[in-house]
């Protein structure tokens, strides 16, 4: 184990996979000479050269398409979106080309590509740079969607994504790059895609949350522990395919569930999780599933408004109390 930041864990995953497999290359805006807008690719140009660390002009659809075409004929590209918001410019390539190629070709051409970069709420980046982008992708059959919350997950999941034979959308977070944690040294340490993890064991209620919201739910759980409410926290880590078994297993134990997501609530991840909990475990539930979501508004710039847009610890605490019928306690 080594203590490192989330950013360093991603960088290490890229280095290890590029060392392991000469077909792996990194492509995107400012990934080489500039060393990445968020320094995730720091040092890679020096280590692997311009053939494998490819700076592109600002042409998201173009360079994403280049990655997909290269993947069709055997390379394993890692495409960096400077921020995932820019992936909207490549949405057609990701949805219509990458996701469907294997199916449309009747299983002839698979697309082993990773499209990665930061997304979600950050610090006063305003409406066009702060979206929870996973919603645009996890709806699409053919894509896998990963949101890694910790340095260990960042490394283990990125390595699995690179080794996967399918297109993987891998969305990090600006707010987590400096988070530190223990990361295994083993270059073959992998976290399989599609496996959730129980971050905190508890008896009374299951909270499903990922990324920044997972950390906020942890704080809420610590507070509620003092009131005698025992909170279990499940981090799905991969949103598609989702490990529904771990989530349902936890709900069967606690009989209550709260889903927390940073993005706008309407038709969000929480809707899907709440739906499958009720389909699979309705009789186990002692209370309706609660959703704590971002406001149905674009991300504002002003600090106070920005705070109000994203679920707070207090709102998570209140929701947990409600499903535990512990209001006013």
């Amino acid at each position, binding site marked *: 184990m080594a203590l490192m930041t989330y950013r360093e864990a991603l960088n290490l995953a890229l280095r290890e996979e590029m060392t392991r497999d000469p077909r792996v290359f990194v492509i995107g805006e400012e990934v080489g000479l500039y060393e990445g807008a968020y320094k995730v690719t720091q040092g890679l140009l020096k280590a692997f050269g311009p053939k494998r660390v490819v700076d592109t002009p600002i042409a998201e659809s*173009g360079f994403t398409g*280049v990655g997909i075409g290269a993947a*069709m004929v*055997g390379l394993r590209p890692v495409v960096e979106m400077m921020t995932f918001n820019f992936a909207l410019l490549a949405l*057609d390539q990701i949805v219509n080309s990458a996701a469907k190629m294997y199916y*449309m070709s009747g299983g002839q051409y698979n697309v082993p590509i990773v499209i990665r970069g930061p997304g979600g709420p950050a610090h006063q980046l305003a409406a066009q740079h702060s979206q929870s982008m996973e919603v645009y992708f996890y709806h699409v059959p053919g894509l896998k969607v990963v949101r890694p919350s910790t340095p260990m997950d960042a490394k283990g999941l990125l390595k699995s994504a690179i080794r996967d034979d399918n297109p993987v959308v891998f969305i990090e977070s600006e707010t987590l790059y400096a988070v530190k944690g223990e990361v295994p040294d083993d270059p073959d340490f992998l976290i399989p895609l599609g496996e959730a993890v129980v971050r905190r064991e508890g008896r009374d209620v299951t909270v499903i949350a990922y990324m920044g919201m997972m950390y906020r739910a942890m704080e809420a759980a610590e507070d509620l522990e003092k009131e005698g409410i025992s909170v279990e926290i499940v981090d799905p880590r991969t949103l598609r395919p989702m490990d529904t078994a771990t989530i349902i297993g936890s709900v069967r134990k606690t009989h209550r569930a709260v889903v927390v997501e940073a993005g706008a609530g309407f038709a969000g991840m929480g809707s899907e999780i709440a739906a499958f909990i009720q389909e699979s475990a309705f009789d186990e539930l002692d209370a309706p599933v609660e959703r704590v979501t971002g406001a149905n508004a674009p991300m504002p710039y002003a600090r106070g408004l920005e705070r109000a847009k994203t679920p707070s610890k207090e709102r998570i605490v209140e929701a947990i109390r409600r499903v535990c019928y512990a209001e006013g306690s």
Partner: protein
Amino acid sequence: MAQKTEGKKAGAPPVDGALARRLLGDMMLIRRFEEKAAEAYALGKIGGFLHLSIGEEAVAAGAMSVLRSDDYAISTYREHGHCLAKGADPRRAMAELYGRRDGLSKGKGGSMHLFDKAVNFLGGHAIVGAHLPLAAGVGFAINYEGGDQVCTCFFGDGAVPEGEFHEAMNLSALWKLPMIWICENNRYAMGTSLERALAQTEIWKFGEVYGIPAEPVDGMDVLAIRDVVARAVERARTDKTPALIEARTYRFRGHSMRDPAGAVYRTKEEVEREKLRDPIPLFREKAIKADWLSEADVRAIEKDVNDRIDDAVAFADASPEPPVEWLLTDIYKDNTEGVGR
């Protein structure tokens, strides 16, 4: 600029009987394939969108005739001709149009999504302009692996106003990708004429802007196409120079079977006038005159083509529907390196 060199210049080897047989045979095969597909569409055996390239066969046949089998080709939703000329089995292509299990894409792709990995045909893509960056990615991969193949990318004049055309031109010039960009300018993007879509209607001139060798060519002259593509391929193989070729052609049918006459946006007189440039009789007569082929040779080619397409139709008709379990296969490729599901 375009030159009618008829195979005498460096690049394309001189024409002989075998080559003439191939060129005429490929063009007639594509023509017959699509005529039969139109019949099957009218009978309800083919559904959805069916876009025919009748009138444009010389571009596919001429370009493919100078490629090696390990070169790549990628195309639009009007791709039957490119797929067949690259070497796909017409029986499996027809079965795909029929949506049957023996189709190239197991019946999951249809007319717009023919793929054949065995002959390096990378598809049938139906979002205008979107396959140009994919093609550039194939060129990127050729360079990455140190190969000397080329990637030919066919697209219509309708793709030129798209941003992805310009992104792909720029990247291929910037990175020196072994790309042969072939614009099949049939003058109408669906019903929108070139003049109503582009401020610069001389499409080849966009190549100059990006520093890409570019030229227009008579898209109805299979030998002219062959020659210009041969020179482009030679450059791309030796020094990775991409090329933009504007093949000036014409589709005799409508945009799709739902626009059978194409009569709203062009005149009947125009269509009839263009039919005088039909690439198949033009080349047939030239081949006979030059003594590359005899009348008997031509009749034999015609019979062979008709037999092959009849066989393809019978094969497609006999092929079963895909089993319903196939709805949920080929969505994700199984992981091969120990990554769990």
